């Protein structure tokens, strides 16, 4: 195990640092996304200013909201299946925390360096479906159940194109380890020019588009927010939740948006790295140590750009009808991503 920043830290210290880092890596992006995009950008796109009272420009509004939620009554429906009802939001949030574990933030600044990194990420992201189904079923409410079932159908349908879109990147990089995918992009070159490295957003553009659409659907953001459609299902599986249990769902939603954006930036935009040619690095070992500090900032910036895209789409389009939503996944996205994989594989073998 490499010593972080070439300081000698004992094993338990590193573990503790990683746990704290994981908390920061989940909650900080979630808070920033909620304030910058949900509060401010959405308001500006609707020609209003959004929250302005709490703190300068309303920047402390999120804390006010959290305080409000924490002091609300914790209501549980009489007929609800109490243990399942209580577990559901925790499972959704747990999936987010498990997801952030594989995102690399720098040459040594990672939580775990799994050999099957991206595969693991796809696997744990599917755990949240369970939480949503549990929430929908245990609420003893028809709307919630319908919302949960819709969410499950949607998440299964869109997980497939997501996996397939990632497959193109994995074929091109020749590895499932996220750290090595980052290195492959930044150390690579396009047509002999290595100034920009080889971010896969260019070579895998189709995959990038499919992946972004799929994560939009995985996050149940508009236009794919059929499961929580407030005009027909009140708010789907979240209807019966209040107080801090709703807060956990809320944090889970936006933290997952941030983590998915981080994974997308790692897969397609070069992650924590800058093109290695800028500083004359050739491989992972020659990367200098300050990237451990600069890396998280670079990932954060790329994440904000991608989240801006997600939220921009969210605030622009009206929602799909349920049948359109399923047809879009099965008849357009999956064939497109399959064709992308085939093309990538053929090109990979040829060159």
């Amino acid at each position, binding site marked *: 195990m490499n010593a972080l920043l070439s300081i000698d830290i004992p094993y338990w210290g590193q573990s503790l640092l990683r746990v704290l880092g994981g908390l920061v890596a989940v909650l900080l992006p979630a808070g920033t996304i909620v304030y910058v995009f949900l509060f401010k950008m959405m308001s500006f796109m609707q020609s209003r200013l959004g929250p302005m009272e709490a703190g300068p420009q309303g920047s402390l509004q999120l804390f006010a909201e959290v305080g409000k939620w924490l002091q609300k009554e914790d209501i549980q429906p009489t*007929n*609800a*299946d109490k243990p*399942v009802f209580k577990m559901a939001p925790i499972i959704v949030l747990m999936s987010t925390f498990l997801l952030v574990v594989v995102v690399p933030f720098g040459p040594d600044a990672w939580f775990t360096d*799994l*050999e*099957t990194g991206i*595969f*693991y990420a*796809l*696997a*744990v992201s*599917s*755990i949240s*479906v*369970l939480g949503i*189904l*549990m929430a*929908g*079923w*245990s609420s*003893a409410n028809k709307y919630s*159940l319908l919302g*949960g*079932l819709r969410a*499950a*159908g949607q*998440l*299964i349908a869109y*997980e497939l194109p997501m996996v397939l879109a990632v497959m193109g990147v994995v074929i091109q990089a020749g590895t*499932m380890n996220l750290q090595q995918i980052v290195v492959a992009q930044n150390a690579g070159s396009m047509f002999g020019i290595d100034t920009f490295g080889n971010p896969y957003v260019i070579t895998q553009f189709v995959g990038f588009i499919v992946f972004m659409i799929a994560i939009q659907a995985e996050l149940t953001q508009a236009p794919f927010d059929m499961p929580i459609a407030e005009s027909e299902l009140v708010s789907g599986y979240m209807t019966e939740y209040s107080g801090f249990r709703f807060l956990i769902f809320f944090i889970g939603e936006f933290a997952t948006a941030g983590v998915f954006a981080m994974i997308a930036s790692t897969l397609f935009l070069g992650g924590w790295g800058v093109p290695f040619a800028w500083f004359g690095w050739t491989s992972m070992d020659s990367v200098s140590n300050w990237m451990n500090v600069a890396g998280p900032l670079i990932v954060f910036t790329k994440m904000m750009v991608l989240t801006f895209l997600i939220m921009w789409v969210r605030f622009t389009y009206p929602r799909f009808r349920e049948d359109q939503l399923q047809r879009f996944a099965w008849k357009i996205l999956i064939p497109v991503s399959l064709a992308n994989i085939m093309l990538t594989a053929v090109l990979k073998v040829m060159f």
Partner: protein
Amino acid sequence: MLIAQNIGFAIIAAIMIVGAIRVVTTSNVVHGALWLVVVLAGAAAQYVLLAAEFVAVTQVLVYIGAVMVLFLFGTMLTRSRIGRDSGLNNTYWKMGIPVALALFAAMAIALIDSFGSEKMPSDGSIVNTQQISDQIFGPYLLPFWALSFVLLAAVIGAIVLARKD
């Protein structure tokens, strides 16, 4: 390190056994499915202990992410009552206990007889993902193709069966 692994094994094994017993005794179908999730997650953890990372991740992706969601989906669509559900067991359900115990006794005797106190190779070569892919696309290519056809047939069959008309 080995002690830590053994403690981890014991905890996960206990959780798995409790979960498995709850799966076959609970009186609510959805609770049964959720306990099965616990067992499957425990199995994935055991695979990690056995240095089979890829299989563990596949277990989570396929079993928890797809199969169990399908199970829950199916049960919630058909009978999703909250609370106890009578009539899940056969009238002769007590027959199952001696059968299971006898089977376990036979298997335990056989296992202890043949493996005794043999230890896992602690420095054994760890199988990595590339080896598995070499296996699948090398000697096991034909079974892999057959498996793809089985999956295709299952997909078509499931659609044909579940169609309304």
